[in-house]
């Protein structure tokens, strides 16, 4: 790479020139920032200003650019110089828009701007333009685990987009759960009649597709590697093992029906009580004719009990709603009505849940004479030749009963998500501790594993609520915690077949994207396109394993000598490993212990008599930093004593930054991150939590330095908190002023 040549560009537009001494900023950039080139411009983001910078890059061989103007979130189209490393000193949103108006604030306003220019230059000198991970990969094919409706859809859709696909199905034929169905709920207008599942045609298309290879009677015995270079051992029932090299993985392993044997009060276990799958079997046997019970009797009356073992508040059964079962019962009631309109069909429900166009299907059933009764079932007992359903009629508000030849229990979906990693961790700890029972439990768990990942974090995808391998995010349903591995269909959340096929198509896109990103050496969502990646100086590593343990994405393995092995293609570039590393050997080309540390050191600390405290703010770049920006946009005033540094995630905060700051005389440190806990909002899973945990450990260090623990403080800041964040700052500054200056001042 060519020699580093730095340049700083200081804008005087947007009122910067009126509020700040621009010439002084230029001098600071030159003398203290040691910028080779310093230029001022009255309107840096216009075409002329931008051209000036471009010319310097091309003709003056400038490699590093510090833009001292507006926030890094503003004018990104203008300030786009792909061949140069760049920092942004935020003088507009970060200084003139938030510091109080009036000449009495001129001094602190200027000092704040001076520091941001110092910081921008200091950061720049430690930065390199990310070159991308040189270990790019070649594999772009997709492995689909599970050959049911979701898996077949994912496979077919990916293949139709031009990608090679490998399907692994544990059964002897493709089709999965859909094979058990006589018909499916309608999925297009007019939403009036049950429709063919189409699964046989889809299975045939998949089997015949030139880009799809199918392994039947097979399971995944082991998955190693990373996106773009997964190595997958496919174990066949016969004992043979095939090895596939894979770009990305879709887990479409579906669900099992909740076991009706666990619902004896609803008749589970009785001869004339079946679940929805049992009813489908009767319908398949009837082949469009009258449905008959197992004993051969024609069914003249049938009662469907909704939410059987679902929406349970007692803790005994499934707490959730499986979403599809109301429409499924409607469809099954139609099997009877279509074969013989005189059949008594009653659906007993508490809330009939047929959203969207399901409403038309519901109407169609009502027209066919299906009866819907709002009631809560107490007990199903065998009576005479059939069953008696005792229930509370919620409309008439009285106890009632129905006799039926057959009762159908609408039970819920239980995801086939493999090993629950929370349980896994405990079992591994027991097994590693030498416990025989632990070892047996571990081996039993390995047997139910689906992916058998060789990751330190466990063999399967992490599960969210109720055992589903769901994404935690509203806006990003495919934001997986195992890069390049996507769950699709009912394994991800309870869903009907229409949603499952939609979901599988989306998962196919994400898998393709993950493989494409790996092939280009860049990050996947949410830092998509980021070319930086963690670089480790292994000779300094003490094998403490904190990086491998704390990585939220399971990106880091350990070698035989217990050194960390970084799988860059699994990495999401959050920097959690960098924050964790006690010996600071992990860095990114444009984000490192030094790029931030240098900024912290660049700030000029006034002496203890100046009555000008300095507070460092480390702000999550996704929520807290935009909130601070928007405080600027709405001209919300906050203290000019703070100096803000955006961080990729609070998880990337290395405690050395905190101790360095306090050592050099800062009066306090504010850490601003996303909400933690059950409804966490951190896109790197546990940034705030980790930061909190690590800071709890430096209490002793603070005490040793003679500092009050309040000098380091954490705040949960949401992106909309622009007013709240200003209040946090002002209150904290007031608290520190009261506490008095840091005793460390002057020793730094």
């Amino acid at each position: 790479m060519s020699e580093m040549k730095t340049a700083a560009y200081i804008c005087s537009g947007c009122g910067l020139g009126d509020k700040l001494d621009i010439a002084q900023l230029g001098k600071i950039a030159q003398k203290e920032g040691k910028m080779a080139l310093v230029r001022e411009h009255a309107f840096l983001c216009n075409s002329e200003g931008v051209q000036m910078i471009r010319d310097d890059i091309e003709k003056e061989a400038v490699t590093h650019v510090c833009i001292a103007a507006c926030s890094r979130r503003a004018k990104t189209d203008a300030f786009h110089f792909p061949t140069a490393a760049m920092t942004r000193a935020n003088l507009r949103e970060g200084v003139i828009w938030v510091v109080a108006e009036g000449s009495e604030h001129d001094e602190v306003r200027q000092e704040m701007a001076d520091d941001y220019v110092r910081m921008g230059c200091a950061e720049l000198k430690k930065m390199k333009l990310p070159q991308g991970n040189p270990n790019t990969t070649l594999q772009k094919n997709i492995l689909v685990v599970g050959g049911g409706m979701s898996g077949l859809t994912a496979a077919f859709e990916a293949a139709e987009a031009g990608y090679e696909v490998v399907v692994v199905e544990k059964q002897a034929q493709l089709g999965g759960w859909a094979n058990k169905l006589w018909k499916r709920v309608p999925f297009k207008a007019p939403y009036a009649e049950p429709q063919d599942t189409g699964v046989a045609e889809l299975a045939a298309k998949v089997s015949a597709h030139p880009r799809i290879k199918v392994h039947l009677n097979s399971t995944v015995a082991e998955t190693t590697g990373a996106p773009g270079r997964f190595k997958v051992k496919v174990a066949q029932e016969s004992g043979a093992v095939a090895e596939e090299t894979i770009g990305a993985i879709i887990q479409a392993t579906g669900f099992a029906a909740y076991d009706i044997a666990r619902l004896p009060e609803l008749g589970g276990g009785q001869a004339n009580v079946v679940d929805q799958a049992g009813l489908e079997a009767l319908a398949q046997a009837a082949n469009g004719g009258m449905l008959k019970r197992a004993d051969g009797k024609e069914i003249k009356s049938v009662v469907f009990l909704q939410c059987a073992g679902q929406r349970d508040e007692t803790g005994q059964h499934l707490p959730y709603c499986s979403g599809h079962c109301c429409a499924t019962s409607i469809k099954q009631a139609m099997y009877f009505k279509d074969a013989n309109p005189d059949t008594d069909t009653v659906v007993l429900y508490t809330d009939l849940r047929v959203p969207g166009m399901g409403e038309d299907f519901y109407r169609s059933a009502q027209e066919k004479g299906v009866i819907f009764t709002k009631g809560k079932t107490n007990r199903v007992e065998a009576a005479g030749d059939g069953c008696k359903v005792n229930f509370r009629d919620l409309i008439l508000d009285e106890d009632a009963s129905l006799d039926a030849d057959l009762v159908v229990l609408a039970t819920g979906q239980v995801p086939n998500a493999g090993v629950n990693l929370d349980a896994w961790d405990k079992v591994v700890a027991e097994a590693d501790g030498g416990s025989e029972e632990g070892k047996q439990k571990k081996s039993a768990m390995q047997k139910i594993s689906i992916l058998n990942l060789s990751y330190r974090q466990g063999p399967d995808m992490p599960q969210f609520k109720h055992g589903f391998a769901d994404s935690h995010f509203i806006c990003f349903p495919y934001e997986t915690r195992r890069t390049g591995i996507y769950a699709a269909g009912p394994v991800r959340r309870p869903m009907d077949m229409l949603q499952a096929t939609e979901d599988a198509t989306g998962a196919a896109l994400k898998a393709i994207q993950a493989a494409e990103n790996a092939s280009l050496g860049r990050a996947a969502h949410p830092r998509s396109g980021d070319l930086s990646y963690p670089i480790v100086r292994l000779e300094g590593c003490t094998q403490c394993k904190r990086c491998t343990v704390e990585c939220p994405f399971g990106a880091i393995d350990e070698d035989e000598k217990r050194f960390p092995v970084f799988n860059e293609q699994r990495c999401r570039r959050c920097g959690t490993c960098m924050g964790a590393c006690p010996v600071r050997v992990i860095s990114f080309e444009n984000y490192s212990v030094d790029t931030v540390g240098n900024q912290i050191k660049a700030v000029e600390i006034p002496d203890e008599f100046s009555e000008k405290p300095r507070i460092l703010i480390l702000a999550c770049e996704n929520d807290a930093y935009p909130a601070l920006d928007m405080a600027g946009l709405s001209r919300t005033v906050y203290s000019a004593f703070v100096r803000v540094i955006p961080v990729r995630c609070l998880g990337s905060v290395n405690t050395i930054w905190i101790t360095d700051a306090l050592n050099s005389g800062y009066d306090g440190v504010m850490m601003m991150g996303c909400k933690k806990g059950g409804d966490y909002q951190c896109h790197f899973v546990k940034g705030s939590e980790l930061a909190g945990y690590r800071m709890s450990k430096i209490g002793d260090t603070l005490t040793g330095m003679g500092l009050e623990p309040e000098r380091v403080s954490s705040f949960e800041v949401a992106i909309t908190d622009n007013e709240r964040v200003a209040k946090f700052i002002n209150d904290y500054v007031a608290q520190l002023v009261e506490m008095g200056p840091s005793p460390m001042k002057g020793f730094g």
Partner: protein
Amino acid sequence: MSPSIATNQTILVVGGGISGMTAALEAAECGKQAILVERNATLGGRTALMSRYFPKMCHPTCGLEINLRRLKGNRNVRVMTLAEVSNVAGQRGDYTVTLKLTPRYVNTNCTACGACAAAVEAEIPNPYEYGLSKTRAAYLPHSMAYPMHYVLDPSIIGTADAEKARAACKYDAIDLDMQAETVELKVGAIVWATGWKPYDAAKIQPYGYGRFANVITSLEFERLADPHGPTGGKLLRPSDGNEAKDIAFIQCAGSRDENHLRHCSRVCCMASLKQTHYVREAHGDSGKSTIYYIDIRVIDRLEDFYQKAQQDATVSFVKSKVAKIAEDKDGNPVLHGVDTEGYHRYATTHDLVVLAVGMEPETNGIKLPDDLLLDSSGFIEGSLSEGMCGAGAATSPLDVNRSVQSATAAALRAIQVVHKTSAAEGVK
């Protein structure tokens, strides 16, 4: 902007809400070229006007920030705002799309400094607050606007105010000579992420929306609950500005009704349950939320959100389709109907009524290409030629999570079209 570089390998995404942004970005991050066109002055669509999302009670702007960052960092997506599709010609793999561009009167020199807004005097009902407040006629749509450029309302063009705005701008960003224009694009595939609109509540005559000040829609309630909204996050009722503590939520306002929308709008039950949180947060135990419903439809893992609301003593549920709303002498809405659980008649007074209005396709009333397949409510099922598809709430009344899921799938469908087009041309 040079639309001429679009080719039959380009994917056009119509609509810049969360579904459109997602479809364009997902395709672009697979290496495809996408053009994202939005009729309004900013991306973000309806979700940008929501206060919070269920069930996490997190902020729509958080996801918007990530998506905007993806967009800023990706050169494969070109964004055109104030651009509306007026015609689609051609066929799968080879479309010619005509766009009508509306002038912003502000060019890309704009630094969002706000000097123009300070200079103009005219005020307009704020289109990004459903008209609940006023804004200057030179305005930034909202604090997450993209592009981060001001816009001049056409009503001031030709007036002294427009000149004042121009004079106030130091950066030559105000261009009063901008004209409407039409441009043509060549694209291979089209994703319709045209979203939804609230059913016109005034059509539900017995509920008195538009006649009674204290009957508002669920969307307007989102703005009231938003700390950045017209009331600073206070739940103030429109008639007298007093705090509304006893709030009724009427489900299926326009939905599941042969006279209005045939379909169930799916999201409204969760939306109202979410809004009871706003009431609780504002008033604690002294707040009161009453949900009038036919069925509570909170499917899959969202059930526990419902269970928590049932345990909340300030939230009650009445199984009833409200028959009509009247107004008492103090301007309080009085709800009349029958609680079908036990058949009790009621006439209940509340401070404020929130209508959980149904979702219908934004494109209802707009002529779409014949190739598109629509269901009986106007939602897009797909296209005959498979060269076009829907995404998000244009395809079904979907919540944000499922809209994004749908948009991700749509991105793949569009990629299939351009893939097959290039494969076919490779053979030639």
